[in-house]
């Protein structure tokens, strides 16, 4: 599975995807293709190695969810992105597909407040359960105190 072959396959199956050559190959998709694409990448592109999942806050342009998966046999790296429009905070969960997504999605929920639909156990992971707010959002000020202090 070369990078060119992967690009062709993605183009055939996901017309809505924008592909930038890498490495890593960067694929940008609408949110409704998120889960089908991950399934396709795991089965057809054989990207079975789950590297990480995170998010980026683009302020009034919404949130990006970023996924990195690898095919370790053919040395193919994939970064997959989707945009959550402003006001949208839910995204399909990849945990049923990759067990590694469990903790990463909990972290993205903890830090950005993204609700992963279908996650079996979505609760905070790094911060305490009674924490208020989601610190990696750009609206969460870093220079003002956030009571209660602990």
């Amino acid at each position: 599975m070369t990078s060119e072959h992967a690009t062709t396959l993605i183009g055939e199956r996901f017309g809505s995807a924008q592909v930038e050559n890498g490495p890593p190959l960067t694929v940008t998709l609408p949110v409704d293709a998120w889960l089908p694409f991950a399934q396709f990448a795991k089965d057809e592109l054989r990207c079975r190695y789950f590297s990480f999942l995170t998010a980026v806050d683009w302020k009034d342009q919404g949130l990006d969810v970023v996924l990195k998966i690898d095919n370790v046999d053919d040395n193919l790296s994939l970064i997959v992105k989707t945009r959550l429009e402003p006001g949208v905070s839910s995204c399909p969960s990849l945990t049923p597909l990759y067990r590694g997504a469990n903790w990463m999605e909990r972290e993205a929920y903890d830090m950005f407040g993204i609700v992963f639909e279908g996650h079996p156990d979505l609760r905070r992971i790094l911060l305490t359960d009674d924490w208020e707010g989601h610190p990696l959002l750009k609206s969460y000020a870093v220079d003002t105190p956030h009571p209660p202090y602990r």
Partner: protein
Amino acid sequence: MSSATPTRVELDYAGSERLTMNMGPQHPSAHGVFRAVLTLEGETVIDVDAVIGYLHRCHEKLAETLTYAQYPSIASKTDYVAAMTSEFAYVRAAEMIGKIEVPQRAEYLRVLVSELQRVASHLLWLGTWCMDMGGALGGGATIFLYTIRERELILDLFESLVGARLLYGFFQVGGVRYDLPDGWAASCLETVDVLDGRISEYERMLEDNPFFMARAEGVGVISRELAEDVGISGPLLRGSGVAYDLRRAEPYSVYGDLDFVVPVESSGDCLARYRVRMVEFRESLKIVRQVLDTLPAGPVSSRPGLKSVAQTRIPKGEAYARIEGARGEVGCYLIADGSAKPYRMKWRGASFSNLAVLPHIIPGHKVSDIVAIMGSVDPVFGEVDR
């Protein structure tokens, strides 16, 4: 007189009772603050809930407030046992976006310290793991004291190079901060020779010990499928039969020019992870020798003498830089917006992903095995919690 046959005591236990037990947050085998909420049936663990976050400092938010010149020395505080590798990942991400050139001598010095760091980190792992497994290993603390003694030799080298023993701030965007002082290479070679001999000594001490073998062999098996699905990396992944080492798969810096072996074991148990690391010790020492032999002359940074911390500006863009650290893939996903500070930075901590495999492998083991499994995973909680 009672009969010679001992009376048999019938315990009223038929597996009907489950006990919830907290292991941690202050448990010596956790090597940090980690709480495992165990559900037990007798001595057998049937469920684990891993509670992390006790060391969380929100490095990712912090990085958005610090300049490219300031953050590398903070990066070392994520994985404080192998500080050099996290600095490496951060500066490499910035250099990838800014297409900043790094002089050849600086690349060699980066590889040199990374490999010494791997040896130091593995030494600490071996000592603490064996101490966790306790008295059966010839007094428990014996190996620990030996490995700490050897690790000290490497920390001495780092101290004479950087001035610090644990957290260095050695890397900077465009190169490294210091060149080797006089006589450093000679004392490094001496240390490497000492270490080479000592590693064989540890192997004999451990592998001739039936208690060690019984506690490591067949315990905590991670299948290849689970390994990839969870995304574990480093010696754990290679212990589960996947020949994936970033120094080989995606040769960064000058690893492409160096000769070394990537060890792979297929059994996936604690012993396999031990064997992988024991080979890595020697391979790292081999790399250190090669680097010292072929170290080119020249400057150690393409951006020396920066007058102000805001002078390093990185153009708009994003990059994912990954380094094969002592514990696996240390990744830094960086988004720059053209200012002196990153817009967003994500740490892919090797320990975080490695620890996430525990809830999948611990159930079915005895409580005492948790200690052996945790030790073989070698998590550093600064990197788990970031």
